[in-house]
């Protein structure tokens, strides 16, 4: 499109400002500024020569963001098909339980760490496939199917560990969540790698187009020849695997699975991250970069709450306020009202063009 390249540069700048997840970036910056005001040294990053690690609050945030990034990206794809996956938190605990239970009796070798990883991800894939089966083949509502899995998953985890909070020790497995490469936490680099892989998979193949088509109009997509069943299976499986990775991240950092706490309410964080990232819950267009930024914001928020010393009982309320404000900023109406105020010129109408 040579004709379009001319106005692109200017357009691009305004498109970043306008992009759905700009609010998310802004919120992260604001939270960091708040923290900076409380402690001017908040953003300082030190270097620990003993283990070659950068240390600092920002590094902590990145580390904490890794599990949320995983489930948010999986959730993003599911939501784009106009579905939802409530089971991600439970899949996390299953993955954690399986790996801990295996490692508690296995020798402390890299091989057993890999085996534990394989077991965890394999089981997560199966759970995701089962979600996909319920949604696409049986035809249950995504909400119900994954709600069932949400409840069953935690039960499965308890059965696996015999109701105990199993702990294990394995250097290699521990390294996944606590190691450093190039001074950065391995867990964050892995998460980033997975996000990029998924994004490339979805956008370079036609998967993204198919997902959007199904999310926008399932009937028309089916009549256009889109294989809805296979696609939904794939999407829920991806979400399952991503939750499995998140579960490994979450348990490897403490090398303990807490069957009632690990992954608890994480599905909410994932949904919020997706919404903050500008993907509509109605399905259709999705934004993986946005979901990633949403996940980073949630991690920043969690750390900020702790840093500001807000009492733990008030934490959920504080989180809710930030998110409500963010959603307000993203709402089209609020934006238009804001723009109209800023300039006398009428806000651009997002109404349909030329249907004469």
């Amino acid at each position, binding site marked *: 499109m040579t004709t379009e390249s001319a106005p692109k540069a200017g357009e691009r700048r305004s498109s970043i400002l306008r992009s759905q997840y700009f609010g998310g970036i802004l919120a992260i910056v604001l939270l960091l500024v708040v923290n900076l005001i409380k402690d001017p040294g908040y953003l300082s990053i030190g270097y620990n020569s003993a283990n070659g690690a950068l240390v600092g609050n920002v590094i902590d945030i990145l580390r904490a963001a890794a599990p949320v990034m995983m489930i948010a990206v999986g959730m993003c794809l599911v939501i784009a098909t106009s579905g939802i996956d409530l089971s991600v938190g439970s899949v996390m605990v299953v993955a954690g339980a399986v790996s801990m239970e295996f490692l508690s009796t296995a020798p402390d070798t890299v091989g057993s760490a890999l085996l534990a990883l394989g077991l965890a991800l394999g089981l997560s894939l199966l759970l995701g496939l089962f979600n996909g089966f319920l949604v696409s083949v049986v035809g249950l509502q995504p909400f119900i199917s994954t709600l069932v899995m949400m409840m069953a998953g935690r039960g499965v985890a308890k059965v696996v560990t015999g109701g105990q909070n199993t702990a294990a020790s394995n250097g290699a497995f521990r390294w996944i969540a606590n190691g450093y490469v190039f001074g950065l936490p391995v867990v964050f680099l892995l998460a980033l790698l997975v996000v990029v892989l998924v994004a490339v998979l979805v956008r370079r193949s036609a998967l993204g187009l198919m997902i959007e*088509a199904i999310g926008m109009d399932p009937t*028309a997509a089916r009549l256009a*020849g889109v294989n809805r069943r296979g696609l939904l299976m794939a999407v829920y499986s991806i979400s399952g695997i991503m939750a499995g990775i998140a579960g490994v991240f979450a348990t490897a950092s403490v090398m303990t699975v807490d069957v009632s706490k690990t992954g608890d309410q994480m599905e909410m964080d994932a949904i919020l991250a997706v919404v903050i990232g500008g993907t509509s819950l109605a399905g259709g267009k999705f934004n993986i970069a946005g979901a990633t930024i949403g996940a980073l914001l949630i991690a920043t928020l969690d750390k900020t709450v702790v840093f500001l010393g807000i009492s733990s009982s008030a934490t959920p309320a504080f989180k809710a306020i930030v998110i409500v404000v963010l959603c307000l900023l993203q709402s089209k109406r609020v934006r238009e009202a804001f723009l109209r105020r800023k300039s006398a010129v009428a806000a651009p109408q997002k109404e349909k*063009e030329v249907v004469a």
Partner: protein
Amino acid sequence: MSTAKPASTPVVELRGAVVELPGGHRALDRVDLEIRAGEIHALMGQNGAGKSTVVRALAGVWPLTAGTMCLDGAPVHVRSPKASRAAGIATVFQDAQLLPHLTVAENVMLGREPRGRWGIDWGATRRHAHELLTELGLEDLDVGQRLARLPVATRQLVAIARAMVDEPRVVLLDEPTAGLQQVDVDRLFAVLRRMRDKGVAIVFISHFLEQVFAISDRITVLRDGAKAGEIAVGDLDRVELISMMLGADLPTLQQLASQRAQHSEVVEGVPLLRAEGIGRANAVRPTDLALHGGEIVGLAGLRGSGRTELARLLTGHDRADQGRLFLSGAALRLRGPRQGMLHGLVLSSERRNDGGIIRGLSVRDNLILSLQALRGWNRPIPTKEREGIITWALRAFGLGEHVLRRPVDELSGGEQQKVALARLFVTRPRVLVLDEPTRGCDIPAKVDIQRLIATLAGEGGTILVISSELDELVRLADRIVVLKDRGKIGEISNGPGVSVDTLVELIAASD
């Protein structure tokens, strides 16, 4: 046909009306329009001429950028659909916005339900809805029926009944007759005349010239957003109006017909697609049909004759519960549209907004979606090939490159239809079944689409066309299969002796 009464004052008037869309496109350019009580006023013009824009402006969907709107001679600001309704203007849009899962009564009375002591009085709601429908000549309709179960034609009438709830002074009808059978059109017109005689002003958009002549008192012709003229139907020089609408396209149509006449020949050998006693309970009686390579076969019949249902059986959209299909002589079982498409049996649905194009996706994505879906998600179409396909589709269907990135629902009806067809053409189907391919299109768009159908057949493609416009079938088809009451009643080879009357007689005679 009553002549206009110029003495009556206009109920609604537009003076120098301008509608500018975001992006600076001027959809309406200084248009003057007078709508008088007790008059049916038709808006004519090609796709994109501004007919629907006028309706949207009056309905408050797209407020005027400049110019004035007057109500009973006094300027008013209609900036929202609500304001428009309050001014006594009711609108029935092109794709009637109804709720398919609600009943007829609920749809008609939505938001206007009579209330009693305990909330909505459902008995009164149903009664009132029934009264309104009775006025439309639909007293036989069960108001408790869910809308989704009714044929399109009936839904359109329900939409009009819905507009009448507020007893409006002006009713705007954007293509109310698209896809309606003559019987339904007549019924609708009877109602419109009754409304007119009561003093309601009616604005009417239709692409069917004869309908406009039959119903309207006054015609405003629009071209490129501006007013090209206003004529009282009594003074109308038809030839002038028609030639203005057809422009240079009339010879093309004639040429097309003669080409097809030459092409028409007796086909022999193994048919490409053969149906043997194919049928489905309550939809199609067992039917035999054979389609040969490079042939255009027309499927004539009234709405409800089983033509759409037969098309769906042939392409796997519905499963046949009896009979067999043979593709190039080999037996074939279809379990869904995707399978049909993989065998090259492709259906273009009659309702493009319901299973056709995907609203919200860009034109570009819509164009390649089907092809991509058939190849599988893991084999993305290479950029070069994709651009080639898109360029071809744009050129073949006469669409401008500027439409590519826009969501398809922003295009005009005719353009949407072209996209809906183009996305199927690019899959290179072996048998293309087109259900009402030119519905809601203006004449140039119709000509384009008919020309493409002829070209595809010329290249060896096989096409089954369903059309309510019998002259379209006579012009295009090599053979015409006539359906009636869910079954095939005859088949004629097209030729010089075959005309619309032949088909009408065939449909009428076999009772």
